[in-house]
C-alpha cells in the first residue's frame, strides 16, 4: 500500500517536472524572441571642426570641365607573393581663362563695336583631384604613406595626360569665344571681336 503511494507520488513529480521543463523551454524559445547579442564596432568618425585657413577673391571663367577617374596600381615583388595596392582616383580638370592674367586694356570699345583680348585658355587650378573620394579597390600587404602619395602623383600625371589635350583646350577656347560674345551682345554690342593671347 505504501509502495503504491510512493510510486504514485514519483509519477506525479515526474509529470510536473516535465510540464515545468516544457513551459520553460517554450518561454525561452517563443516569449523571449527578441534576444540578440552581437559584437559591434562603431564605423563613424568623430565630430571635429572645419577650420578656414584662407579666403580669397578670384576671377576665373570656366568654359570646359573634364571629370575623370583613374584606376592606379602599384606592385611590390616579394619572394613568396607579390603585394599589390589598387585605388580609383577622381578628379575634375577645369579649363578656362583667369581674369587676373588680363592686361589693363583687354576690352576696347567704340560705339557698338567691342574688341576683347582674352588671356590664353589654361588649367585654372593645379589641385583638381578629390582625394577624399578615392575608392580602395584592392590591397594586399602593408603600404606606407609615401606609397599612397606616389600613387596620387601617378594618378595626377595620368589625368593630366588624358584630359589636358589640345582638343580640349581648343574646345574650351571655342566655348569661351561663344560665351563672351553672348555676354557682350547682351550688353548691347553688335560688332564683337574676340582674340586670345598666344
Amino acid at each position: 500500500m505504501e509502495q503504491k503511494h510512493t510510486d504514485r507520488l514519483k509519477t506525479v513529480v515526474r509529470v510536473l517536472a516535465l510540464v515545468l521543463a516544457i513551459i520553460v523551454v517554450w518561454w525561452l524559445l517563443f516569449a523571449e524572441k527578441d534576444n540578440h547579442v552581437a559584437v559591434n564596432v562603431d564605423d563613424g568618425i568623430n565630430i571635429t571642426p572645419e577650420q578656414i585657413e584662407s579666403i580669397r577673391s578670384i576671377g576665373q571663367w570656366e568654359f570646359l570641365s573634364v571629370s575623370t577617374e583613374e584606376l592606379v596600381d602599384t606592385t611590390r615583388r616579394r619572394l613568396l607573393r607579390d603585394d599589390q595596392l589598387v585605388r580609383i582616383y577622381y578628379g575634375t580638370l577645369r579649363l578656362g581663362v583667369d581674369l587676373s592674367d588680363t592686361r589693363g586694356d583687354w576690352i576696347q570699345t567704340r560705339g557698338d563695336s567691342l574688341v576683347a583680348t582674352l588671356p590664353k585658355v589654361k588649367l585654372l587650378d593645379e589641385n583638381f583631384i578629390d582625394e577624399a573620394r578615392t575608392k580602395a579597390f584592392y590591397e594586399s600587404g602593408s603600404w606606407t604613406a609615401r606609397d599612397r602619395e606616389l600613387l596620387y602623383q601617378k594618378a595626377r600625371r595620368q589625368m593630366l595626360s588624358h584630359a589636358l589635350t589640345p582638343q580640349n583646350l581648343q574646345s574650351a577656347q571655342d566655348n569661351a569665344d561663344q560665351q563672351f560674345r553672348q555676354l557682350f551682345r547682351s550688353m548691347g554690342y553688335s560688332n564683337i571681336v574676340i582674340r586670345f593671347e598666344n
Partner: protein
Amino acid sequence: MSTVGGCLLGVLCCASALGCSGCHHQEQPAEANYQAIDSVPLLIMQIQKCARLYTTEYHLHKIITHDDVVKLQGSFLKQNIDVKLPLGDRKVAIPMDATLKGYIDFSTFSEKNVERQGEKITIILPDPKVELTSTKINQEEIRSYVGLVRAGFSDAELSRYEQQGREAIINAIPRLGIADRARESAARALVPMLTQMGFREENITIAFRREFKPYDIRRYLEM
C-alpha cells in the same frame, strides 16, 4: 510518298554524316587572338561645356578622427547589454585640406539679365553656388594607434573615414558664408570689366536674383 520520304531522310543522314566527318577533317582552329588589356589606366571621362565665373575661394583644413571600440551589444531577457570588450582600441587621425569655390553660372545669361536706363546699367545675376573643387589628404601626417590584438587600419577603412570627412565638410558649407562672399567678389570681378566698356562705376549695379525651384514656391505658399 514513303519512298520519297525515305530518300529525303537518307539524304539528310548523309549530309549530317559528311558534316560530322568534315568537322574531324577541319583544320585545327587558329589560336584565339588575345587582346592585351592595359589594366592600369582605366579611364572614364565626362566632358562638359559650361560658363562659370568663380569669384571666391576657401581653403579648409579638417582633422578626421576615429575611435574604434569593440562592444558587445544587444538584448537578453529584456535587459539591454552594452559592454566594452577588453580587446584593445584603435585610433586614427587623418588631416585633410579642401578647396571650396563660389561661382556664378552664366550659362543662361542673356539680355533679360541686363537693364539699361540711360547711362545706368544693372546686371542681374543668379544666386551664387558653391562647389568642392579638390581635397588632399596629408598622407605623411596620418597618425594611427592600434592595440596589440587588433589589426591595423586597411586602405578601405581609411578611405571610408575620408569620405565621411568629405561629407562633413559639404554639410558645413551653409555655415561658412561662402555664398555671401561670392556675391561681393562677383561685383569686384565684373565692375572693372564694365568700366572698361565705358560705364562709370557709380552707374553700375550688380544685383542677384534667386532661381526659385518648385519646392521653394511650395515652401513660401505654406508660409
